[in-house]
C-alpha cells in the first residue's frame, strides 16, 4: 500500500468518527433525551439509586 493510500485511509477513519460524533450530538435533542428519562422514571420505582445516577448523567 502506498503512503498516499495509507494516509487517505487514516484520514478517512478519523473523518468517519468525527461525522458520527457530530450526528450523535445532533440526534441527542431534548425530546429524545426524554425517551431515555422515561424508562428511568420506572426504574426509579425499582432502583432509586441507579435512576438517580442515570438522571444526573443525562442532565435533568
Amino acid at each position: 500500500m502506498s503512503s498516499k493510500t495509507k494516509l487517505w485511509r487514516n484520514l478517512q477513519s478519523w473523518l468517519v468518527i468525527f461525522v458520527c460524533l457530530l450526528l450523535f450530538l445532533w440526534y441527542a435533542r431534548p425530546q429524545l433525551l426524554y425517551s431515555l428519562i422515561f424508562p428511568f422514571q420506572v426504574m426509579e420505582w425499582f432502583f432509586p439509586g441507579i435512576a438517580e445516577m442515570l438522571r444526573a448523567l443525562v442532565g435533568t
Partner: protein
Amino acid sequence: MLAYILAKFLSVRLDSLFVATFVFLWIFLVTAFMLLMGLIGLLAPTPLLLGSLFGLVILLVPGSLRAKAIEIVSDIRKLRQAFGEWWHSLPIWLRWFTGIAVLVSIFRFAALTLIFPPFVWDSLTYHLTNVAEWTQRGRIMLFDTSMTRIYTPANYETFTLWFTVFIHHDVVVEMAGLPAYALAVLSLYVIARRLDFSRSASWLGALSFASTPALLLATTGTKNDPHMAAYYLFTLAVVVTLSSNPKEDEQPNQLGQLTLLAITILYAFGTKAYIAHLLPGILIIAVIGVKRGQGWQRWMEIFRDSVRQLRNTRRLQLLLLVLILVAGMFLGLFWNTRNWVLQGNPFYPYGVEVGNEEVLPGAERDAEISFSRLRTNFTDLFLDKFGDKQSRIMPDLDNTTGWGWFVYSIGIPALILGCILDRRVRMLALGFGVSLTLIFFSIRPSPWNMRYLLWFPALFSLSFVWLLDELRKADHQIPRIAIRILTIITLSMNYIAMLNYGRIPPERFQAMLAIPLLERDAASLRINMPGEYENSLKIIPEEALLGYNLHSNGFIYPLYRADFAQYLVYVPVSVQGTCFEVAEAMRTRGTRYLFIAPEHTSDSVISFLNDCGESEIALRERTGNLYVLKD
C-alpha cells in the same frame, strides 16, 4: 422435528443459514398445521397434540426420513461445537456485550409480555380479534362484525394461535413476534457473512439491527410487520447465499434453496400482500449481483443445476418437495382465494382502482398506486419523520422513523461512504431503495406508516458491517476503538429508551403489577383504552353473550377478556330506525347487552342510543356506554 428434517433437506450445511432456515420452517409448519386444523374445526389442545403425534409417526415411517431424524442427536452436538468455536472467535469485548444484550433482551421481552396486555391499535381492532374468535370457537372462520379487515391475509394471526390455543389465554400472545425477530436478526448475519464480511463485524451489525427501536417495539406489538421484515430479509439471505459461490466444504443444494425461496415468498404473501411491492428490490439485487459475476448469468447456472438435481432426485424426496410447495401455495394463496370466492375480490376488503375507475369494489378504501403518494410519502419521510424529531419513539411510530440512535449516528455515514467506496453496499442500497420506492407508491400517507419499513434499517447495519471491516485496515487503533465505544453507547441508548415502550408511566406500570398475572386484560391497560371497556367488563357476567356496536376502527379485542371467556356478537344499529328495532336486533342475536364506546362507536349511534336509554322505551342505560334490554 419436521422443521429440522426439512431444514436439513433444503439447506446446505450446519451454519447460520441452517439455523435461520430452521426458525423459518418452524413458523411455516406451525402456521400450516394450525390453518389445516382450524379449517376443520379442531383447534383445541387434544386434537392438536394427537395430530402432531400422528404426523411424527407418519414422518418416521420412511427409512430415509427416519435416518435424517436420528441424525438430530449428532447434529445438535455438531451445532453446539460450531457455536462454541464461533463464540470463542469473537473478541472478548463483543462476547461481553452480546451476553449483556441477550440477557437484557430476554428480561425486557419477558417483562413487557407478562406485565402488559396487548395495546397496539391495529392489533386491538382486527389482528387479535381474529385470534380471539378462532381460539374461542376452535375453528378458523369468518364471523359477523363491523371490522371488514378480518378478511385480510392472516398467516400471522394463524401462527399466533399457537400462543393462545393451548392455554386459552393471551398472557404470552405478544411472544408471537419473537421468532420473527430472531429470524430477521439471523438473516442479517447470514447476508453479511455471505458477502464475505468478517464474523465479528457481521455479528455486531446483526446486534445493531436487533436494537432498532421500531423493530424492538413492533416485536411485542402483536402485529404482522416484524414478520414481514423477517421474511424480506430471509428472502434476501437465501438469494445472496444462492448467488454466492459455495464454500469449500459445502455441497450446493440449489433445488432445495430455490424451494425455500418460493415458500418464503408465498408465506409472506399470505401474511401481508405488500411483499409484492418489496420483491422487485431483491430481484434487482439478484439480477445485477451484489458482487461481480453473481448476476443473471449465475442464476442461469443455478436453474440448470436445479433441473439436473431434480432429475436425480429420488421419488420420496420429490414427494417431499411437492408437499412443501403445496403447503406454500396453501399458505400463500388461501386467504386471497377465499376472498375471491366469497366477495368476488381477492384483495377484499380493499378495492382496486386503475386510473380513475374502480375495477374491484371493496368495503374499505381502494388500493392505489400513484406518483402523488410517492411524493407525499418521501416528503413526509424527510420533512416530518427523519431524525425522529417530532416526538418520542412510541409503538405507533407517530411521525417518527423509529430508527434510533445507532442509525442516525453511525448508520447514515456508513451508508454514504459505503455507497461511494464499495460495490456490495451500493448494490444493497439499490435493492433496498427500489423496495422503499415501490412501497411508497402504494402505502397511504399517514404519520404511522413507517411500520411497513421495519426491514429498511438493515441496510444501515449492513453498511456498518462494511465500515467496521474497513476500519480494521487503518493504521490507527483509536478510530477503531472510538467506533466500538460509540456503537456500544448508541445500542445501549436504543435499548434503554425502549425499555417500557417509551410511553407507559410509572403509575400505570405499578397498577398493572398490582393485577394478578392472568387477570391483566387488554381493557385494564389505560393508555389508549377508554375506561368504558374495563367498567363494562366488571358489570357484564362472563357467561353472558355481549353485543357490541363498534365502528370499523374500534377496539373489539379487549371485550373478549384475557382468557377469551366472553362471547361476543355484533349488533348493527341504524340511526334511521327505532329503539324497538335495536332491541329486536339484540333479541334475535341472543344478547341482553349492547356495548358502545366513545371514539370507537360512531357519534350518531352513540347519540341515538343515548336517546333510547333516556326514554327507556326498549333499552335501559346501565352505564353511559352499556345498554340492557328492558324486561
